[in-house]
């Protein structure tokens, strides 16, 4: 009796599957789907904060207003830094998918550093506004502005913690191509905070 040899078969993952997880009912990664569901729900959070800001920003009757405190050139630089961090995050995902662990570490560290620069800029901006007379309870514009941009800053800070966690995992040798999906999921979160800032920068800062 001769052995039966199965013909060579290559299984291609469906789009959405990173290719290293276990089988799921949908054929796509549950972790990635969960992140997309979370991001869809986070749209509601930021939608509420942006619409509240739009509703309240011109209803202040005391204290300083947007025109008195905004420094558009400074905020533009911060926006550019956050936008470029999306590029470095995309490169971090691409490098781990290719199995290039060294470059992945470099891009993760760069993304975290750019995020840190953005947060430092926000702290500087808040401090300056406070010195110019805009506290959280000074007027309704201040409350809406600090709540909206503060929540965004909190999201960026959580993203930096996730990036640093990935970096530590990588330095301990626990982040190889088999964990590429973890990097991709953190990347989705990071790009989301970038697109939220794209909206905030236009709606809050650029439109008077």
């Amino acid at each position: 009796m001769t052995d039966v040899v199965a013909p060579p078969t290559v299984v291609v993952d469906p789009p959405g599957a990173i290719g290293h997880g276990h089988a799921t009912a949908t054929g796509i990664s549950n972790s990635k789907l969960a992140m997309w569901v979370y991001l869809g729900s986070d749209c509601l959070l930021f939608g509420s904060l942006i619409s509240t800001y739009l509703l309240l920003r011109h209803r202040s009757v005391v204290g300083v207003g947007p025109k008195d405190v905004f420094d558009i050139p400074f905020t533009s630089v911060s926006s550019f830094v956050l936008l470029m961090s999306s590029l470095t995050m995309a490169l971090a995902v691409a490098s781990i998918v290719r199995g290039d662990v060294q470059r992945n570490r470099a891009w993760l560290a760069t993304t975290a550093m750019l995020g840190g620069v953005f947060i430092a800029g926000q702290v500087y901006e808040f401090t300056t506004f406070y010195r110019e007379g805009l506290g959280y309870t000074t007027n309704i514009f201040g409350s809406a502005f600090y709540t909206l941009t503060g929540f965004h800053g909190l999201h960026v800070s959580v993203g930096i913690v996730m990036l640093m966690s990935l970096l530590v995992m990588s330095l301990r040798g626990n982040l190889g191509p088999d964990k590429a999906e973890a990097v991709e999921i953190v990347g989705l979160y990071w790009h989301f905070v970038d697109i939220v800032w794209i909206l905030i920068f236009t709606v809050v800062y650029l439109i008077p």
Partner: protein
Amino acid sequence: MSVSTPDHDTHAAADRDPASAEVDVEHGHDHPSDWLYVKIALILGAITALEVGTYFIQDASTTLLVAVLFPMMIIKFLVVTAYFMHLKYDNPLFRRVFFFGLLLAMFVFIVALSAFEFWDDDFLKFLR
């Protein structure tokens, strides 16, 4: 039982997006190349520079600023979601889940703003 060869699968993956030659299909699903990511970032940077440029236009009406800035904002939003977040290449289910949340948020808060009379005469005067 279907049998496929590596060569066949690679071409099949590439055929899904014939317009994009700059994709890496080695892992079974498409990923833009590093160079494509850099080009996209340069485009996004250029659009941001144009947005910031509107700040220096003297006496621009709010209507004009909204008409110019909103399309640029939407383009940046869509480019980041399509390429950096891979929605262009990924499973359509992710796109549906995300845009369902986004459209729901837009609908809910347009209704909420209407309830608070955001689009009243003051708003129209503000636009003028």
